[in-house]
């Protein structure tokens, strides 16, 4: 009987530990993850502009590496840095928000600079939005 109780106790503690870990598990690591897609900023924007449903199914929630030219860099009130990559349409950009979970140094970012970033695609508003971005080069 005692043995059964001890086993039950160990199992209970085990479950609690797993539960605690899950509850407090960290956000997924992006900096070391391999992107599922590597695209140019225009290609990505065109995909969403042409067939949003298809592009959603393909890209949303996935880690995407995108290369393009910086058209704008914004720093918001809460300290977030948004790097906008240009496209043929000035109203449409790929907006890459630098990761606030795994912070990294970004150095100087200038308009017209060619840059490659990877991030998680949230979807399409008037821009394609990438979250938790890391500069690849």
């Amino acid at each position, binding site marked *: 009987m005692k043995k059964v109780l001890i086993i039950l106790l160990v199992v209970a503690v085990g479950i609690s530990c797993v539960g605690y870990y*899950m*509850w*407090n*598990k*960290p*956000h*997924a690591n992006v900096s070391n993850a391999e992107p599922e897609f590597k695209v140019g900023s225009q290609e990505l924007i065109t995909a969403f502009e042409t067939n949003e449903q298809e592009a*959603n199914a393909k890209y*949303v*929630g996935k880690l995407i590496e995108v290369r393009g030219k910086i058209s704008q860099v*914004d720093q*918001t*009130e*809460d300290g*977030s840095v*948004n790097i906008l990559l240009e496209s043929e349409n000035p109203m449409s950009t790929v*907006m890459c*928000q630098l990761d*606030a979970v795994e912070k990294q140094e970004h150095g100087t970012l200038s308009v017209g600079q060619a840059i490659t970033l990877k991030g*998680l*695609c*949230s*979807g*399409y*508003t*008037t*821009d394609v*939005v990438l*979250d938790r971005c890391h500069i690849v080069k």
Partner: protein
Amino acid sequence: MKSYLNFKAMTKFTLLVVTSFFTMSVYAQKYMTREGNISFYSDASMEKIEAKNNKVSSAIDAGTGKVEFIVLIKSFHFEKALMQEHFNENYMESDKFPKATFTGTITNMKDINLAKDGSYKANVKGKLTIHGVTKDVASTGMIKVTKGAINVSHKFKVALADYGIEIPSVVKEKIAKEVDVTVNSDYKAM
């Protein structure tokens, strides 16, 4: 004599064009942001749930009073990764419904002068779509004009059940039936 009349007519015409242009350019001004802030808060007996989205896309047309918000669900940040996962996978089903949108009109546009600094109450009416469900909503927010830039702030409640968001009985106590939503966005003139 003829040339004098022509000159007067020309001046009047030019004045009319310039004034119309000026008036048009002030009142037909469009404002937009791609970095609007929307956060929500749920306070139930066991848990406080809070998430922030600072990449909200929104546009206001001062001429027509039309307002639009596009909110990507996956852009909501939670402190806890597991909460964010549950929010996306179980509650919002964001793979199926990646956006929440609002399209509507400011019905008292005539009371609001976006060219003049000040705080204005804005009565808004329109359609709110969350989790694929669209509802007619009406509410009052604040527009604050400071030197040509505008800030929109608004607090309202969303009843989860209204939008088909199901709370499993297991966690019913943890999540409030109504969620408090706060909008706070700065717009730039286009």
